């Protein structure tokens, strides 16, 4: 996007700002919140590739996260396999799961809400499975020992994890940045806008969709390793929580689907709203209501997300029109 290039110096400045930020923030709380924002933005970005660019909404994105977390954690606890290599197997595991889920659902032509539901079903299935088999530790869960060091991807200070999350997020932005200017990205967008036309113009829509979900899976896998090495505990409800599936699509929708910075903006806004509401409202549960209300307002009034609203103000024509109705009759 030429627009992006124009703002490149601004972006580099922002990135440098994030890198040096921990030298100015001494509060552990803020570092943790920022780490969580990067982590959610990263997961949101993985959802964005399949959902925002290829137009295939998934409701079970957590399955890749959970599977990646189990892959590296089990390798670590049973074989002592260092997570710095384990993360790559987690990435492979996530991509492989993406291949299976993608092949099965896209091959049978599942789209829209049917696809969303089947991904939800896969995530639930994996949660139940992880609960009932032994090598995952079942319902008791897996406990990882704390032994800081790069080979364990564990750090002595929260700042270490801050940088870990920041690197993940930078990588995810780089992936989507590449996507925007590439043939593969254009093909995904074509599929989102009109799958029949895409197919007619020589795009192997099945293959493209499977690649997209594999990228999402690979990214989710790495996130799983990050999480388990940071929190040192994993059980099926954490690994396959619906909450995380919803969060990754929420930050993307709020920020702006199919945009490079949508997930980051969404994650930043939602986490900030959440923290601020929690800070100022003492009545238990009320902060969640405020959070929910703000969410409804954003989604109701800004169907293209915050970035979409900003773009519209900047330039009225050539809008991203995910919400615009298209007549798709079969002749």
């Amino acid at each position, binding site marked *: 996007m030429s627009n992006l290039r124009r703002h490149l110096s601004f972006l580099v400045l922002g990135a440098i700002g994030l890198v040096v930020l921990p030298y100015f923030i001494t509060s552990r709380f803020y570092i943790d919140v920022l780490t969580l924002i990067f982590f959610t933005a990263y997961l949101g970005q993985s959802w964005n590739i399949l959902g925002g660019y290829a137009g295939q909404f998934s409701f079970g994105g957590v399955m890749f996260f959970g599977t990646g977390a189990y892959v590296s954690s089990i390798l670590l606890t049973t074989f002592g396999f260092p997570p710095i290599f384990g993360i790559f197997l987690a990435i492979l595991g996530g991509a492989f799961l993406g291949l299976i889920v993608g092949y099965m659902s896209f091959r049978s032509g599942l789209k829209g809400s049917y696809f969303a539901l089947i991904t939800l079903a896969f995530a639930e299935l994996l949660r139940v499975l992880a609960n009932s088999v032994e090598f995952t530790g079942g319902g008791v869960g897996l406990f990882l020992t704390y032994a800081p060091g790069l080979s364990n991807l564990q750090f002595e200070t929260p700042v270490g994890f801050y940088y870990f999350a920041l690197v993940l997020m930078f990588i995810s932005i780089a992936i989507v940045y590449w996507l925007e200017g590439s*043939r593969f990205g254009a*093909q995904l*967008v074509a599929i989102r806008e009109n799958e029949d036309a895409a197919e007619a113009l020589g795009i192997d829509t099945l293959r493209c969709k499977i690649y997209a979900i594999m990228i999402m899976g690979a990214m989710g896998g790495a996130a799983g390793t990050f999480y388990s090495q940071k929190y040192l505990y994993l059980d099926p409800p954490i690994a396959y929580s619906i909450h995380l599936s919803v969060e990754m699509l929420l930050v993307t929708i709020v920020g702006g689907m199919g945009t490079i910075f949508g997930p980051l903006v969404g994650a930043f806004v939602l986490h900030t709203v959440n923290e601020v509401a929690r800070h100022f409202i003492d009545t238990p549960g009320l902060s969640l209501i405020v959070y929910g209300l703000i969410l409804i307002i954003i989604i109701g009034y800004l169907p293209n997300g915050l970035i979409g609203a900003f773009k519209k103000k900047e330039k009225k024509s050539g809008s991203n029109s995910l919400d615009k109705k298209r007549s798709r009759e079969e002749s």
Partner: protein
Amino acid sequence: MLRVNNLTKKFGGLVAVSSVDLEVNEKEIVSLIGPNGAGKTTLFAMVAGFLKADEGEINFENASIVGMKPHQICQRGMVRTFQITQPFAGLTTLQNIMVGAYSNTAQTNSARKKAEEVAEVVGMTSLLSQGADGLTVAGRKRLELARALATDPKLLLLDEVMAGLNPAEIDEIVKVIKGIRDRGVTIFLIEHVMKAVMNLSDRTYVLNDGKLIASGTPSSVAENPQVIEAYLGHGAAEAMAEGA
């Protein structure tokens, strides 16, 4: 170049296309006409791989393409447009055409160059940066044509690219289609606009109730009593002959 034998498609009890044989030779413009509901678009959809034929053979450049997916057929050099235009609504005209151009190159720069070239051919250069959802009907029809052309096809299947256009716009698009043929692309088109059919086609096939009822040069087909009856109703040919 394209040879169709005994092609049949049934929807439940309705025979939409009934053992049709036809042929399109290299560098020809061949048209397919017929009343509404004759099965023209169904035939196109089968040829382009969007519908599975119940029976029959489809050969493109001496190889069977039955059972192939549309994208595979496109990669072999046959591409269709849609009667009901199917733009990538959220993208600009340029981005739309680039999707077609990407079928031959992975390079963004060469895809953009190709798209700009094609836009020139169909006369859309001034609309390149406009959103596809803001195009007029004529613009959308041209965009269909441009996207298909950007895939560098050997055979172009055009499904009513003139429907809904005014006479001036039709004259323009007829010129564009002739220009495309002169660049060496074979064209097979479905059309209702008779003036354009007469003007453009080397040969014409007439489909009625799923069956081919006539074929030949456009003028010979237009005088065929069966064809007149198909369009105007039973007895029309006689009445016209008497009237004359």
